């Protein structure tokens, strides 16, 4: 393998991993607060269409990312109201949010398919990325650096800040957090909103970073893979980073297998396309063989909170 090819592969892997990483970081925080939001895929699609429409009409990528985050928050608030204020079943409501996001994005995206936009360019000046090493370090768009910074931020928030401690307390033991005066519902609303913003941005990665157009269901199950990755990472941000990049690698292999001959192209393209989903199943199996998968899950995950008094 030439150096040039190796670098091209690294750059592609990083791109493919970024939306999964962003969405999974959001879901990690949500789950740490004791809420299971299975609507990630739906919120990503809402973010994807919002991001696409804004960049198509204004040409401003950063505004598109911002409003995609806002759209994700708006979608997440439907979930939050139903599950936190009305204590509806979290699993069912999350599924409903995904069905809603799929339908809503298809409706809003009507007439936008096959209309091209420009991808978000690299953050740093091109001169920095001419050397191969420079390209690996400086050749990405802002979304990639955002995802990496957020790995650290989420880790730091959960581990080192008082607010993070409260959030974890709410997720581990909602009744005692409530009894010492913390607003369980308030903390969970905030966590779900953060998850929504991250899912919205993750969705915007599809038209802004990967394929410069809108296509129905263009997230293709990546939101669900993000949910699975949180389990894989046993609710730890840095393990999430490793997991997301592993998946980016699997997806990139599909591209290279289709493009260039060699032994990889003997495998049918459809099997390559199915690989990320099969890999998710395999990863879930491996993680549960290694240990009890639920051992690190927040104790109150997906349990509705009702103050006992």
């Amino acid at each position, binding site marked *: 393998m030439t150096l040039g090819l190796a670098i091209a592969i690294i750059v592609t892997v990083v791109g493919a991993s970024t939306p999964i990483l962003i969405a999974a970081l959001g879901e990690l925080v949500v789950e740490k607060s004791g809420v299971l939001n*299975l609507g990630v895929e739906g919120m990503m699609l809402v973010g994807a269409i919002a991001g696409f429409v804004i960049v198509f009409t204004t040409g401003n990528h950063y505004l598109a990312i911002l409003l995609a985050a806002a759209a994700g928050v708006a979608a997440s608030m*439907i979930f939050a*109201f*139903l599950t936190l204020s*009305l*204590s*509806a*079943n979290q*699993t*069912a*409501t999350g*599924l*409903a949010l995904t*069905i*809603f996001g*799929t*339908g*809503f994005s*298809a*409706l809003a995206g*009507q007439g936008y398919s096959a209309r091209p936009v420009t991808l978000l360019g690299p953050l740093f000046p091109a001169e920095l990325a001419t050397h191969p090493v420079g390209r690996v370090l400086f050749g990405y768009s802002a979304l990639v650096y955002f995802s990496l910074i957020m790995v650290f931020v989420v880790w730091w928030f959960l581990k080192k800040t008082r607010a993070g401690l409260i959030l974890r307390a709410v997720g581990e033991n909602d009744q005692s957090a409530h009894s010492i005066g913390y607003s369980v519902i308030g903390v969970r609303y905030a966590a779900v909103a953060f998850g929504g913003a991250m899912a919205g941005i993750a969705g915007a990665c599809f038209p802004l970073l990967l394929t410069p157009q809108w296509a*129905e269901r263009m997230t*293709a*199950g990546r939101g*669900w*893979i993000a*949910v*699975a990755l949180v*389990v894989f990472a046993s609710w730890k941000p840095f393990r999430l980073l490793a997991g997301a990049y592993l998946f980016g690698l699997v997806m990139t292999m599909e591209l290279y297998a289709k493009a260039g001959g060699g032994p990889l192209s003997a495998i*049918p393209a*459809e*099997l390559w*396309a*199915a690989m990320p*989903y*099969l890999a*998710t*199943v395999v990863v*879930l*199996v491996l993680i*549960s*063989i290694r240990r*009890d*998968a*639920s051992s690190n899950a927040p104790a109150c995950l997906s349990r509705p909170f009702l103050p006992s008094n």
Partner: protein
Amino acid sequence: MTQYRLEKRREPSRFMLYATPVAAVALTMIIGAIIFSAIGYNGIGAVREIFLTPLTNSFKWQDLGVKAAPLIIIGVGLSIAYRANVWNIGAEGQYIMGGLAATWVALASHGAGGWWTLPVMMLAGIVGGAAYAAIPALLRTRLNVNEILTSLMLTYASVQLIYYLVRAPWKDPMGMGFPQTRRFASEALLPNIIPGTIVHAGVPIAIIVALVAWFIMSRSVFGYQMRVVGAAPHAARYGGFSENKTIWLALLVSGALAGLAGMLEVAGPFQRMVPGFPTNYGFTAIIVAFLGRLNPLGVIFAGIVMAITFVGGEVAQTTIGLPNAATGVFQAMMLFFLLAGDILVRYRLKRVIPQAERPA
């Protein structure tokens, strides 16, 4: 100022249990009309075309039956699984595998079939769907892997399997390059039960499936076990019901029914396997199961309601130019309202008179 407070009911309200699905449909019509007007469509027209035209136009009744049949069959299976607190959300994949297994029988017996072809296809569909659901069941019972994620991931994989089969080994050599199988021989096609319509044998089968499931769920030990394990796992263990056995049964039954629906679709409306076979029935049936209150008889009505929105969505597309995706938004809204209304099953609204306003 009058304030309201939620007060827990001593036991869930049966009235609210059955009133909330009706209220959810009514609210979807009202709020849907408002929202669709607000975003620039003819909102009232949209609601009329989606919810009423399929009922008032008798030409559409056959479409309703044909669309409702797979939704009812899959929805019945999912309602049994959800009753047991087993979250099979991969019914779409099990539907696909049932369709593929039936297709295999139809293609293998092509030209050599007979009266037995359809029963064997039906069996293949049931086995195919159940076998695909057995994977999440095995992983959940042996390794405690979440069935939500595995059943869903397998759905995405099964879609790729269709693409592969119709593009390579099963491709119709006379198909002028289209990625699809040959049209099934006549003995591998579902008979029409009402001449001159598109109503096929799957429609009465759906009703029979729902009635049998209702009888089993309400009258048998099996049904009791599913309900007890779902509602009170600890009590179930005390009562000697195995949780693992329940998980297996829930996934196999719901997978088998989704596979049966797949067989009926491929041998009925489709008449061959095509890349467009994944129709989303497996996902829509999730809404059907909830709207039907996880009760097989309720699922019949919920399946018809959902079929109305599908048929009505197509009507609205041609008559008032409402995009097809609007149907999905209406369906999701219905589920949101239903889940929101659930709180009234367990709680009642109570008027609270604030302290300060209380007469001395």
